C-alpha cells in the first residue's frame, strides 16, 4: 500500500475520530489555543500599535523592540515557562502555550498596526483636525478605517504563525494537533505525523479564508478597489521571521 493510502486509512479509521486523542478534540484544542493567543495579541499588540501610531511618539523604538523579540525561539520560551512552578503545566499546558505563543503573535500585529496608523495620509489627518474633530474622533473615524488593511494583514500573518507553531504546545502536554506530529515522529510513524501536519495545514487554510472575508468586510467600501490593486502590485517585503 502506498503512503497516501495509509494516510487515507488513518483518516477513515473511526477510532481516530473519538475520545480525548481524537481528531475533533485535538483540532478544537488547537483552534481554541490559537484564537485565544491571537485575541490576546490583538488586545496588547494592536492596542499599543494604535496608541503609538496615533500619538506618533516612541513608535519606532517600540516596533523595533517588538521585532527584536521575534528572535526568541518559541520552543525555548515555552520550556522556560513550563518549568516555572507558577505556570508549569497549568490548564493542561494551555497557560504556558498561551503565553509563549502570544509573544510570537504580538510583533507582526504591533508592527502592522503602527505602520497602518502612520501611513494614513497626513493631509487627511490635518483636514479632519481642521474640521474640528477631536483626537478620539480622528482615531475612530479617519485613522482606524484607513488602517484596516494593514492591521488585518498583521493579524493574518500572526494567525498563520500561531496556528503552525501551536503544534509545539504538545511538547508541554497540551493535547492538540501537535500531539499527532510529535508522537508520530517519536514512534517513527510518518503516517500519523503527516496526518497531523495535514490537519494543521487545513486549519491554516481555514483561518486564512475566514480572515480574508473579515478583512473585506471591515475595509471601508471606497478603499476596497484601491486596496486590491495596491495589494496585487505591492512589494511583499517584511516577510515575518518565525
Amino acid at each position: 500500500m502506498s503512503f497516501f493510502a495509509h494516510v487515507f486509512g488513518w483518516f477513515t479509521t473511526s477510532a481516530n475520530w473519538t475520545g480525548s486523542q481524537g481528531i475533533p478534540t485535538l483540532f478544537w484544542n488547537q483552534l481554541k489555543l490559537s484564537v485565544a493567543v491571537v485575541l490576546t495579541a490583538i488586545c496588547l499588540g494592536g492596542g499599543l500599535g494604535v496608541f503609538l501610531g496615533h500619538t506618533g511618539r516612541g513608535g519606532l523604538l517600540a516596533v523595533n523592540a517588538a521585532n527584536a523579540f521575534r528572535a526568541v525561539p518559541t520552543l525555548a520560551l515555552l520550556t522556560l515557562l513550563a518549568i516555572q512552578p507558577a505556570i508549569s503545566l497549568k490548564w493542561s499546558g494551555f497557560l504556558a502555550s498561551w503565553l509563549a505563543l502570544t509573544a510570537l503573535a504580538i510583533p507582526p500585529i504591533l508592527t502592522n498596526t503602527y505602520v497602518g496608523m502612520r501611513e494614513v495620509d497626513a493631509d487627511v489627518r490635518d483636514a479632519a483636525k481642521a474640521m474640528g474633530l477631536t483626537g478620539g474622533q480622528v482615531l475612530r473615524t479617519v485613522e482606524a478605517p484607513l488602517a484596516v488593511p494593514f492591521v488585518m494583514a498583521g493579524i493574518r500573518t500572526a494567525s498563520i504563525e500561531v496556528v503552525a507553531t501551536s503544534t509545539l504546545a504538545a511538547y508541554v502536554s497540551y493535547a492538540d494537533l501537535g500531539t499527532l506530529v510529535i508522537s508520530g515522529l517519536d514512534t517513527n510513524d510518518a503516517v500519523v505525523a503527516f496526518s497531523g501536519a495535514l490537519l494543521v495545514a487545513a486549519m491554516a487554510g481555514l483561518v486564512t479564508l475566514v480572515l480574508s472575508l473579515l478583512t473585506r468586510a471591515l475595509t471601508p467600501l471606497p478603499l476596497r478597489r484601491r486596496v486590491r490593486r495596491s495589494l496585487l502590485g505591492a512589494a511583499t517585503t517584511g516577510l515575518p521571521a518565525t
Partner: protein
Amino acid sequence: MKKVSSMRLTRFLAAGLLAALIATLAVPVVSAGASTSASSKPTIIIGSTNFEEQAIVSNIWADVLKKAGYNVTVEPALGTRAIVVPAIEKGQIDLEPDYAASLLGFLHGGNPQAAGDNITTAIPADQKALASYGVTVLPASKALDTNVFAVTKATASKDHLTTISSLKPYASKLTLGGPPECPTFAGCEPGLKKTYGLTFAGFKSLDEAGPLSVAALKNGEVQVVELFSSDGNVVSNNFVALTDNKHLEGADYIVPVIRKSVDTSGVAKVLNNIDAKLTTAAISKLNLDVTAQQEQPAAVAQTWVNSVS
C-alpha cells in the same frame, strides 16, 4: 519600514507552511557514511537518541576512537530509538549507544523479552535480532541505566510508597508523566499495566526524563514520572525511585550497537577498553554534571576520557 502584506503573501505563507510541515515529516537525514579517507581506518558515524546520557556516551566513544586514529562524526539527538535503530539498520549511522534489554524489547515489537532480564542472555539475543541487518552488539559497559518511576518524597511518605507494587491502591488517583512514546513503550505505561496491574488516572506527555518531567513532578502536575536510574535528577531533587519489585525493567546496560562493516578488532578493542571503565557511578556523575551543572556533554565526556586514560 514594512509594506502591507498581500493576499499573495498569505497564500505563499500557507503554501510554505504546508511545505514546512511536510519537511518535518522526513526522518532526520543522516549523511550516508561514505568514507573519503584513503587510509584503512573507516569513518565512523555515531548517532544517538535525544537525551543527555546518549550525547555523553557518544562523545566518550568519539573521543577514544579519535585518539586511536579513526575519523569520527557525531550525530546527536536524532530522535527516539524508533528513529535511531532503523538508521543503523539501513547504514545511515555506524554506531549508537543503546540499552541491552530495552533494545531487545524494541526489536520484538515492543514486547519485553525474558532474555532481557540478564545481560549475559540479552546481548546474544540482541545480536541475533540484528544479524540480518549487518549490525551487531559489542560487550556491555558496566553502566546500568534502567527506567525508574519516581514520586516526590512527600507522596512517598504520605502513601508509604517504596515499590511500584505499592502504587496499586493509589494509581487510579494519580497522573503518570513520561516521554511521548510512553503509552506505546513496553517499559513504560503498557508494562506498568501488564506487570503491575496499574491503571493511572491520566497520562501527561512530557520529555525524555528531562527538565519538563522533573518540573512536572516537582510542581505536582504529575504524581509519578518516568526518569532514568543513572540520571542525577532523582537524587538532586530528593525524589524517591520506586523499587521495580516485579522486574519490569531488564538489564539495561549501555552497549555499543555497531555495523559489522566498521566493527574491526581495532574498533572493538578501543570501545571495550573504555566501556570497562564506564560504570553506573561514573555515568551518573557525568549526567549530573550536564543536568545540574549545565556543562556541555562533549566537554564532560572529554574531561572524563582524559581522566581515565
